[in-house]
């Protein structure tokens, strides 16, 4: 308690996740702090200080803006613009029908085509999307889960047509189905067949696409759905444990596939809590891989991650303030040692970003990299009593959740029981209640509001996009060799039933211009569909 003569301005100080924060941290809060055991040098176990020896002095993080809208032609233009502006990697946002496994002419796609991302139905669309972009020179991340293998198959064939073999391409498919059930909710099949498809992808890529990150184990969407920082950390690492377990159970050598697992975290607004989260994540993963899974290769122990600033923190009110929020969030990701970064655009609570808005977002990263000097020294906040204490705290909270999930029978069972979903829903509701009581503040929303808002320009997706996309899709179906396409679909059905590697079948099928909706349709027939239990 503060002395009466020095009152404090709040009865209780807490992070955005509602974790109580002490007035001061001192060496006593750290107990017997063993530098080598807790931190180690950068590039050395347990990797708390970073996964590479030189970190940003060797190479800056990859600046990778998530982008996609309208037709593949529209998005190709945006990619080429971003690369011209100094962006160093690509990241594809697909429209909802692609995410959910429907072609653009399916009745369920009505009204959704090209709206929330780029429309991709067949190999033709991927050829257009990456036209004039050399796939041996850029790496590409694709936010795709249920149909991840099919989109990777299309990417492999597009590269092949450019003369780039599969062992030369680099990038990431999100392919993290567990967090779909937990948070993002773009699922297709039930959990268990989904896990089977993922192990097929792990097996195929280990042999054929060795530079590809096969799963991007994602906390981002867990946080966006309203979790706390500790829950984001816990459920993400628990999902990671689930995938490694599944790979090992499928007979794969842990050191053969674990090095290609990567992670994806949110950068929310509570600056130090986020930095502590990234540092704790690296230490936890290293220990879990070493102790629980007996991994031997250092590459299996390293948690490499992408970061995106928090979409849910942006406000429709006074939207220019979003530039500042994003800059501070991005700074926490860099101080936390991220390997790649997406900075949100100021208009993203209103629509997909305009070219002007995404340019400011990219420039924000470039300013952090080239002007602030924060990339000169590795893990500069290490040794701060507060940062080390908070790192320990987040690790302990997350480990307690992981213990609980283990007790429930592992993450797949915990998801089937609705455990993480319920924890996140409760946290989201608690935060909303705190906002309404003004215990938590959002500038421009529940404090410092303005009567007159200054409108900003926003991107509109023309309704013509849907007609054009459907026309192109129908032409693809007309022009392809129908007998060969049908034969490939038949092979997928057989592999799904009999246990052949589905990823190998996807590559053959997309080459014959089988569409995404057709392939998923076959698999739906075999595996069934997951339905939302609609829990509140």
């Amino acid at each position, binding site marked *: 308690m503060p002395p009466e003569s020095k009152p404090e301005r709040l009865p209780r100080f807490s992070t955005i996740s509602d974790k109580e924060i002490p007035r001061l941290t001192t060496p006593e809060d750290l107990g017997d702090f063993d530098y080598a055991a807790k931190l180690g040098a950068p590039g050395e176990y347990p990797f708390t200080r970073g996964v590479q020896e030189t970190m940003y002095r060797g190479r800056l993080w990859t600046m990778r803006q998530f982008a996609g809208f309208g037709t593949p032609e529209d998005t190709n233009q945006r990619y080429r613009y971003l690369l011209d502006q100094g962006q160093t990697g690509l990241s594809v946002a697909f429209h909802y029908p692609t995410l959910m496994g429907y072609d653009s002419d399916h009745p369920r796609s009505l*009204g959704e085509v090209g709206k929330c991302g780029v429309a991709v139905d067949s190999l033709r669309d991927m050829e257009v999307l990456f036209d004039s972009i050399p796939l041996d020179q850029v790496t590409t991340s694709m936010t795709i889960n249920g149909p991840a293998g099919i989109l990777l198959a299309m990417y492999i064939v597009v590269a092949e047509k450019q003369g780039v073999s599969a062992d030369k391409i680099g990038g990431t498919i999100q392919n993290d189905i567990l967090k779909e059930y937990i948070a993002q909710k773009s699922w297709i099949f039930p959990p268990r067949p989904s896990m089977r498809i993922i192990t097929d992808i792990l097996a195929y890529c280990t042999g054929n696409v060795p530079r590809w990150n096969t799963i991007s184990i994602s906390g981002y969407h867990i946080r966006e759905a309203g979790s706390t920082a500790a829950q984001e950390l816990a459920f993400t690492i628990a999902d990671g444990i689930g995938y490694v377990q599944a790979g090992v159970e499928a007979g794969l050598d842990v050191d053969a596939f674990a090095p290609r697992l990567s992670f994806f975290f949110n950068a929310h607004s509570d600056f130090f809590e986020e930095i502590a989260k990234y540092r704790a994540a690296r230490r936890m993963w290293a220990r879990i891989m070493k102790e629980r899974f007996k991994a031997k290769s250092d590459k299996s122990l390293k948690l490499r991650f992408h970061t995106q600033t928090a979409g849910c923190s942006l406000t429709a009110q006074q939207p220019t303030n979003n530039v500042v929020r994003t800059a501070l969030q991005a700074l926490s990701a860099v101080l936390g040692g991220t390997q790649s970064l997406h900075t949100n655009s100021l208009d993203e609570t209103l629509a997909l970003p305009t070219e002007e808005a995404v340019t400011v977002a990219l420039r924000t990263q470039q300013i952090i990299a080239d002007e602030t000097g924060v990339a000169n020294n590795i893990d500069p906040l290490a040794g701060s009593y507060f940062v080390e204490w908070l790192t320990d705290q987040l690790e302990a909270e997350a480990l307690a959740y992981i213990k609980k999930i283990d007790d429930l029978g592992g993450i797949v069972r915990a998801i089937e029981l609705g455990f993480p979903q319920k924890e996140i829903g409760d946290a989201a509701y608690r935060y909303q209640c705190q906002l309404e009581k003004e215990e938590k503040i959002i500038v421009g929303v529940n404090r410092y509001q303005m009567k007159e808002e200054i409108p900003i320009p926003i991107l509109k997706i023309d309704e013509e996009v849907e007609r054009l996309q459907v026309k192109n899709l129908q032409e693809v179906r007309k022009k392809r060799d129908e007998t060969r396409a049908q034969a490939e679909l038949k092979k997928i059905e057989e592999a799904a039933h009999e246990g052949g590697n589905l990823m190998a079948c996807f590559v053959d099928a997309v080459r014959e211009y089988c569409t995404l909706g057709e392939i998923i349709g076959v698999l739906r027939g075999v595996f069934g569909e997951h339905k939302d239990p609609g829990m509140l």
Partner: protein
Amino acid sequence: MADERKIRVLIAKPGLDGHDRGAKVVARSLRDAGMEVIYTGLHQTPEMIVSTAIQEDVDAVGMSIMSGAHNVLMPAVVDGLKKKGADDIVVFGGGIIPDDDMESLEQKGIKGLFTPGTSTETIISWVRENVKPR
């Protein structure tokens, strides 16, 4: 005499988008404010929403859309209710809806539209003022 019947609200997620944070927070707030709330879960077609609304005999349907498909899906629910003779069910909605789309949605029968940053208190008051047990 029995108490006046509680307001019954269906909170619905039409379309393919999976962002259910807002829908769930609003559903819980309305329930905590004393209303009876039914939640459809995700990935509903307009037909599914209309049929649930009628089956559950609700007084209002609140839809949440983040994917940009609001111009197609929200009016489809209004039309569907009208065809089934249930146009006295009040339809409202929320999500990422640009200002330019507001007017046409209101003309098509979406009576209240709530965009990011709206407090649940505002939504609760609006429902109390605009929805009466049928």
